[in-house]
């Protein structure tokens, strides 16, 4: 046979001319499975098919339930992010890049006072200024909103009083920026200055005028927003300690420092639907809040997530300026764009809580940890934001990865007259984690044991329970510690380095997706839903609400679908920008996206796979159990020549119903205890990490320079090792910033003094140490192909590692 096929028209002559071009009318048919950008069917990549199903991928942590649907297509391979070409060509559209025709510019008037009552606002002069199209004040936004349903304490603009410098007072929309800025000067406001509170310790005391008032549920007349008290285990164990440590910490607030300032564009379309473009991690919260604030049903609002120029938790609240843009746009009848300058970014804040942390810990004769006693007083700033959760996380996320004899936690979050703190990468866990790990090193010092040995002796095993009732499934902590120990040559260096050099260890533990979907009961609705549709062209469109904030969630979802259906990744199109087309999703927070959305995507893809295999069954006569799905072709297991192309099977499956549609959902298993706050910190899986940091300290000036970091992170299964490494190195960068250079400085009068990137010191390329990312794969039984989170957990251990090294 001359290589052609029977279908070839015009007999069996050569298909190519002498100049290499195709003979007219002759199709150079490639081998079976042709299609897409690659004409030849790829062979099965056995290196990426697990051993348990006949491949060559090593599985030290055992097999996984998803192994049987591995096709070796994309999981575990280093892949560029699917949207990276848009980003490198400047075509990615961030908040401020949305330019609608006829748009006007919105500007926000911010409070000059820390704490003051607004007696009156006169806007007549503003409205008289030519070029001003709309003015809005607190009177236009009487409804309260907040990220958590239990703590709704924000207004779009201050209704009665302003609670920090930079709090929103009013806003204007004008034909251009200079007119809008000019208009801000024309507000006539009468203030009544109130006594501000800056020190969180003062916030515990009664005040004349508490910053918020919750009626009969308010704690006396204090500024306490949330109190937490938890105690587990046998407290008698701590009475006669063999070793103990006591650390008192004062942690400054830090900001996410994302490079893209907030920006929002609001537009009421002619049908009276609001189209809101915003860089949001959690578009769904904004959606809900907009509905409340604007008195419009949710289906009349379309929240369009633009590309997000860095989130890290700082873009996960529904923000008042988003409401302002919508209100202004409604009043002016034109699209309104509000872009923050860098200073405004700091006024809205939501960074890590400044906190006072006290950690006492004890160990018994066998060097087993007999008790943690943690007290955290956290400074929440003017609003609750995520603070309710943060108050719990400060304690409960310190209960692992160690086996504790007892645990005692008291925490309080207070309102102060500063910009509100909120969620930031490593939410709530970072500061206590640092205090705990340094305390452990102190105990190791008193007991004269190696700190890594001390940690190894106290680790929780896989498939266990923490003292507070969290269900630990996979756990790669031991391996992580061993890897960093050998990687860093720890035994040769620890306590043996010359003066001015040091080496230190830190461990981390973080949730992989919050077990409680904030707005609904997890037993009734799933955590995440993914819709999928395959049309005649064979391309797969995936609709998900997962918000890609640069971490690569879109890529992760595309990867798992590509893996299950054995299609090249360019055939998977993820649509996740619009709330109109994506199923309701809680977005990117608590490191949930990879775990929950990828799991939901796998389920939807499995449904499509089943339909394809059934069609192939009908065509080939072999039961799906005996069929292999490979690169754009389905064939009989024992004879690859017997098969159908993916498209033929697809068209067969579509005969009855048109496009194939599938929907997949993820819900977490029932977990956790029944005590108050049991849901905080619950997660279907937890990530673990261990870092070793090496530092140089100039003994005369005290300047600290981190030179090397060995960073081992247990992410279950690295779906995309390139992205995981990027997350690990990036976390080191952010953590180093917090421990060495970054700090939100509040002056004596309570003013934020470094609200710009010049005085807020984010490490530059010269301050970065060499980071050796080590990926530990523990294969989580419930994770998608075994994966867990890799976004927030890697940040935790770098702080204590550096502190311990010093």
């Amino acid at each position: 046979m001359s290589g052609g096929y029977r279908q070839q028209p015009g007999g069996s002559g050569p298909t190519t001319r002498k100049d290499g071009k195709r003979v007219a009318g002759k199709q150079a048919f490639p081998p079976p499975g042709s299609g897409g950008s690659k004409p030849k069917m790829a062979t099965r990549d056995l290196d990426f098919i697990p051993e348990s199903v006949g491949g060559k991928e090593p599985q030290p942590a055992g097999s996984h339930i998803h192994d049987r649907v591995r096709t070796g297509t994309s999981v575990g391979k280093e892949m560029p992010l699917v949207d990276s070409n848009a980003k490198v060509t400047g075509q990615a559209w961030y908040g401020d890049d949305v330019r609608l025709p006829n748009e006007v510019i919105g500007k926000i008037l911010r409070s000059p006072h820390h704490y003051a009552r607004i007696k009156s606002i006169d806007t007549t002069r503003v409205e008289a200024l030519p070029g001003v199209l709309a003015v809005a004040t607190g009177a236009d936004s009487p409804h309260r909103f907040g990220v958590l349903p239990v703590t709704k304490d924000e207004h779009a603009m201050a209704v009665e009083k302003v609670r920090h410098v930079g709090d929103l007072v009013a806003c204007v929309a004008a034909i251009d920026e200079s007119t809008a800025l000019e208009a801000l000067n024309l507000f006539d406001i009468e203030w009544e200055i109130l006594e501000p509170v800056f020190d969180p310790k003062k916030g515990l005391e009664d005040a004349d005028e508490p910053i918020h008032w919750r009626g009969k549920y308010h704690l006396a007349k204090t500024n306490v927003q949330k109190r937490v008290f938890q105690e587990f285990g046998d407290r008698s164990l701590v009475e006669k300690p063999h070793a103990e440590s006591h650390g008192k910490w004062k942690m400054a607030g830090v900001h996410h420092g994302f490079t893209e300032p907030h920006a929002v564009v609001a537009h009421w379309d002619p049908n009276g639907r609001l189209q809101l473009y915003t860089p949001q991690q959690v578009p769904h919260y904004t959606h809900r809040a907009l509905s409340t604030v604007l008195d419009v049903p949710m289906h009349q609002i379309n929240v369009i997530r633009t590309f997000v120029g860095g989130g890290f938790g700082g873009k996960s609240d529904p923000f008042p300026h988003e409401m302002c843009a919508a209100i202004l746009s409604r009043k002016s009848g034109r699209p309104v764009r509000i872009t923050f300058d860098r200073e405004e970014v700091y006024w809205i804040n939501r960074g890590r809580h400044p906190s006072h942390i006290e950690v006492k810990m004890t160990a018994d004769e066998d060097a087993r940890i007999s008790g943690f006693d943690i007290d955290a007083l956290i400074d929440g700033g003017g609003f609750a934001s995520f603070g309710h959760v943060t108050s719990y996380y400060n304690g409960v996320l310190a209960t692992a990865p160690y086996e504790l004899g007892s645990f005692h936690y008291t925490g309080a979050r207070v309102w102060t007259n500063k910009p509100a703190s909120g969620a930031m990468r490593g939410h709530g866990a970072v500061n206590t984690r640092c205090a705990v790990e340094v305390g452990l090193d102190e105990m190791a010092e008193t007991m004269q044991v190696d700190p890594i040995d001390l940690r190894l002796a106290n680790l929780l095993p896989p498939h266990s329970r923490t003292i507070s009732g969290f269900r630990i499934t996979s756990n790669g902590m031991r391996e992580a510690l061993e890897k960093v120990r050998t990687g860093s040559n720890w035994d040769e260096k620890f306590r043996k380095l010359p003066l001015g050099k040091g080496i230190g260890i830190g461990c981390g533990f973080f949730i992989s997706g919050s077990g409680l979907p904030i707005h609904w009961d997890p037993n009734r609705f799933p955590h995440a839903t993914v819709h999928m549709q395959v049309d005649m062209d064979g391309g797969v469109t995936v609709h998900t609400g997962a918000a890609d904030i640069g971490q690569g969630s879109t890529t992760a979802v595309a990867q798992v679908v590509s893996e299950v259906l054995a299609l090249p990744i360019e055939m998977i199109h993820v649509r996740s920008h619009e709330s109109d087309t994506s199923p309701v999703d809680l977005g990117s927070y608590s490191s949930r996206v990879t775990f929950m959305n990828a799991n939901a995507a796998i389920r939807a893809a499995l449904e499509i796979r089943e339909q394809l295999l059934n069609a192939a069954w009908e065509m080939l006569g072999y039961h799906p159990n005996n069929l292999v799905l490979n690169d754009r072709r389905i064939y009989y297991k024992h004879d690859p020549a017997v098969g159908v192309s993916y498209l033929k099977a697809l068209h067969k499956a579509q005969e009855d119903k048109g496009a194939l549609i599938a929907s997949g959902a993820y819900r977490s298993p029932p977990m956790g205890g029944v005590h108050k706050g049991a849901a905080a910190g619950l997660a279907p899986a937890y990530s673990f990490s261990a870092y070793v940091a090496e530092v140089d300290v100039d003994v005369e000036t005290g300047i600290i320079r981190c030179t090397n970091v060995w960073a081992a992170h247990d992410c279950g299964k690295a779906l995309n090792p390139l992205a995981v490494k990027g997350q690990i190195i990036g976390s080191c960068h952010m953590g180093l910033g917090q421990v060495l250079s970054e700090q939100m400085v509040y002056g004596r009068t309570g003013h934020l003094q470094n609200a710009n990137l010049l005085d807020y010191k984010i490490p530059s390329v010269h301050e970065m140490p060499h980071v050796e990312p080590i990926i530990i794969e523990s294969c989580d039984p419930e994770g998608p192909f075994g994966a867990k989170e890799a976004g927030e957990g890697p940040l935790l251990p770098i702080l204590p590692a550096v502190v311990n090294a010093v």
Partner: protein
Amino acid sequence: MRAPPRRLWRLIMVGSEHIKMIPAPDKNIWSAEVNGAPVEVLVASNAILLDVLRDKVGTLGVKRGCDMGTCGCCTVMVDGAPRLSCLCLAGQVEGSEITTVEGLADGAHLAPIQSCFAEYGGSQCGFCTPGFLISAQALLNENDTPTEQEIACAIEGNLCRCTGYQQIIESIQGAAAIHRGEVAAAAPASDAHPDPHPDGPDEPNMPPGHAR
């Protein structure tokens, strides 16, 4: 005879008084060559280059991060040298050749630095990427064998919050290898596919076991 330019008087606050004070700046035709194309737009004499590029020229790939020269997101190449467009008056660079991130690619062919940033993970959220690309390209134009230290010095004015710089340095080294000709550049994503008919023959006309 040309009429004298009309001056718009701007209102400003002095104490609690709101008075006409400073004349609004003159507006002039500003011309330059942006990404190889001549551009003529009407801009105020005190306009910042960043604003002109974003709002008038429409090169939205130039990002605004901080407005004070600290983040480097707004870096553009002016006559071959990287420059922070937020600290640059449009008038200062009148008539010069300006390259933004949109001008790096040659048609559909991504510049090596662009494809390497994608391939090596040098871009995560992507907001700082345009600035990094310009700084890196300016370095590579002069030096295609940069050491790690030279790369660090070239990008020291750019802040990245996601990647921790390590993968950015790797990307630049990868691009340098392409510049040196050691590695072939990637084909454009929009090239015609070798087989535009994904539905090939479904049943191979071959005896069982003959599969390739």
